[in-house]
């Protein structure tokens, strides 16, 4: 186990374990969001809550664009371009924070109901709150990766931390692709 080749084989095996573990975690987590979607359709049916359409479109675009930069970060580090990797992670983080400010800072205030005002409020705040919590953990995760990236910890061969953070970020993004129409588009007011 002392040769560099053997060490790389061990690393690759661990990497495969880690990848499977992350995918299983995302599978498990998706059941939480599925439960919230079920709740939304069970309680509200074909009604949708009254929300700011423009704001919804803006935050959705911001989050989708952030996923592009997240992907770019992973591509750049695997090519060995540290500068491009760091700038992409940084932009992803900023866009994530913008999304959070948009949802929690503005939409939560602008919504014409509070969490205690009937099922609409309960569903809206639970769904956006649970999603925002995941975005927040994703931002923290990206920040850790960014900080370690600044220290020069990742290489084209070994950058599992980046891959995990980015895949988690994509997952959170995909969840929003289901949540956005469920909250903003489907149904009548």
């Amino acid at each position: 186990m002392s040769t560099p080749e053997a060490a790389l084989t061990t690393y690759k095996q661990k990497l495969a374990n880690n990848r499977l573990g992350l995918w299983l975690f995302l599978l498990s987590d998706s059941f939480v969001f599925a439960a919230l979607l079920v709740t939304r359709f069970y309680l509200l049916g074909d009604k949708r809550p009254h929300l700011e359409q423009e704001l919804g479109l803006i935050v959705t675009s911001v989050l989708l664009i952030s996923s592009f930069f997240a992907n770019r970060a992973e591509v750049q580090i695997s090519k060995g371009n540290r500068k491009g990797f760091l700038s992409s992670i940084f932009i992803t983080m900023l866009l994530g924070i913008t999304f959070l400010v948009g949802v929690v800072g503005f939409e939560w205030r602008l919504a014409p109901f509070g969490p205690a005002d009937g099922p609409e409020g309960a569903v809206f705040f639970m769904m956006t709150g649970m999603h925002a919590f995941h975005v927040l953990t994703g931002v923290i995760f990206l920040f850790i990766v960014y900080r370690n990236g600044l220290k020069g910890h990742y290489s084209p061969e070994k950058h599992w931390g980046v891959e995990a953070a980015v895949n988690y970020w994509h997952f959170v993004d995909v969840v929003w692709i289901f949540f956005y129409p469920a909250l903003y588009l489907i149904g009548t007011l």
Partner: protein
Amino acid sequence: MKGILSYGILRGLIGQIVGWAAGIGLVTGIRALMGLAYKAEPAWVVGAALGIIGFLIGIGAFRDWFAWAKGEETPDPEEIHEEPGVKRYFGYSLDHKVIGVQYAFLSLFLLVVGGSFALIFRVELVQTGMQWVTLNFFNTLIGMHGMTLIVSILMGISAMSNYAVPLLIGAKDMAFPRLNAFSFWLAVPASLVLVSAIFTGGFDTGWTGYPPLSIRAPMGMQMFFVAVFFAGWSSILGALNLIVTILRMRAPGMKMFRMPIFAWATLATSIIALTATQLIGTSFQMVSFERLFGMSFFDATKGGNPILFQHLFWFYSHPAVYIFVLPGLGIISELLPVFVRKPLFGYKWVAMSSLGIALVGFLVWAHHMFTSGMEEYLRVPFMYSTLLVAVPTGIKFFSWVATMWMGRIRFQVPMLFIIGAIIVFLMGGLSGPPLGTVSTNLHMHDSYFVVGHFHATMFGGFIFPLFAAIYYWYPKVTGRKMNDLLGKIHFYMLTPGFLIMSFGQMQIGLLGMRRRIADYDPAQGFETAHLIITIAGFMVALSVLIFLINLFVSAKRGEVVTENVWQSRSPEWTVLPTPAPMHNYPQPIRVVGDPYDYGLKGARYVEILPQQAGD
């Protein structure tokens, strides 16, 4: 003082107290800044949650992960040499065998606690009228009995799978040893929070926590929710770890269809635990938020729908029973060939039947809700899917019977419990279809028949196999055998005691005894039956006490064994010495045959690979 603090669990407890106090202080402080008066419920909820995190920080479960976040390297678990001795069992250890034993102790501790709750309310039920507990305390005990034992069972299956699966599949350890230790230590403070529900007002909903009652129940309800949420995460992360271990860490040559059946059963269980458990966490979280923030998910007066809760809740809580029984059924299939000295009948079918039960288990949840007022068209499809569960379960029974047929059965203590498990689980299984069929369910819903049915499934599917597994692998842990005579007394008290209890419950259930009630009409004439059930219940408790005495006394005085006590073909007995060394399989092994070829001439299963030169 420093000597005591070297026990991780004590650092954890101190961390939990500090975290709990900090949580209460934090919420009270924020509320004070907002100009609000002290309110117990939010403060205690946040306190309980932070207390659990405090425990984990105290015991050091986050240490390595924080180091990774800071970009530091930590040593590989295989390179860590822990000090041998009893102390390993009281702190943060990365060895799956230690964690398995830790799980077992937590499981048995909760088994005793939860069982004692049952004894208290069984005594109350002997006579009509209320004698020695209050109504609220009775209800609290009912709910606590249920949930404490559910957590106990979750810990018990984790104990068996953590200890046995890496050994059975020839792995060095679990895939993620730190996550493994984290999952276990998450359950310890969660169990403490669960027990704290008794002292924070209790709750009167039973273990199901149905709203709208759970929205109005005393504050103990919230402790119950917090505890289940974190115990659920423990179960999810443990399941994740097991799936990766089974899929990726098998010894060379062990193809999927050469895996021991217990690994198959654990795989099936873990798939359910990984996914469905999120639903109970989410549904309890929603009730908790409804209480804290007034979010009206389930309160019909404010536009919510209580039926929704039942759908979400049972989407976990029905598959959960398969989480509970599948590992136990796997243990039966795993140990039966050892004691019958014959190959397991229909290996592939048995392996697939576990996955079959897991799959069908996802599609049956609404059979708990036939009387709830849900959409009527859902009844018949769910009845059929429920009855479909009998098919894969039947495969297992046929396999067991056919394996035993013409075998040279050795009636050693683990085998007794295997036979007991098959009989008791059969009783549990046969009492299932009347409950799964809509027309009969409408009459038997919420009666003691249900109680009798699921106690039979839980005992047959979990308790008996757990005891068998403990008797079987005990020499591997301690190097000593458990006392045979005490083991036989344990079995011959437990089995009749349990059957009387379970059949008694089914009988009075059919006659109209409702479950979860503290008192009943003397004119119903159930007093004698309740007395017999209670005596049988105490018999079960006494047999478990004998088992516990055996467990502790044999660790010091049991017969010393060094070789393959049960003449098993499994690598942990044939390759490893007894007791098991700290690191599994120092020499690499290879699987060259099928696991259960007992009595076949020239059959080989595992061989040790020759050491490579220069390694």
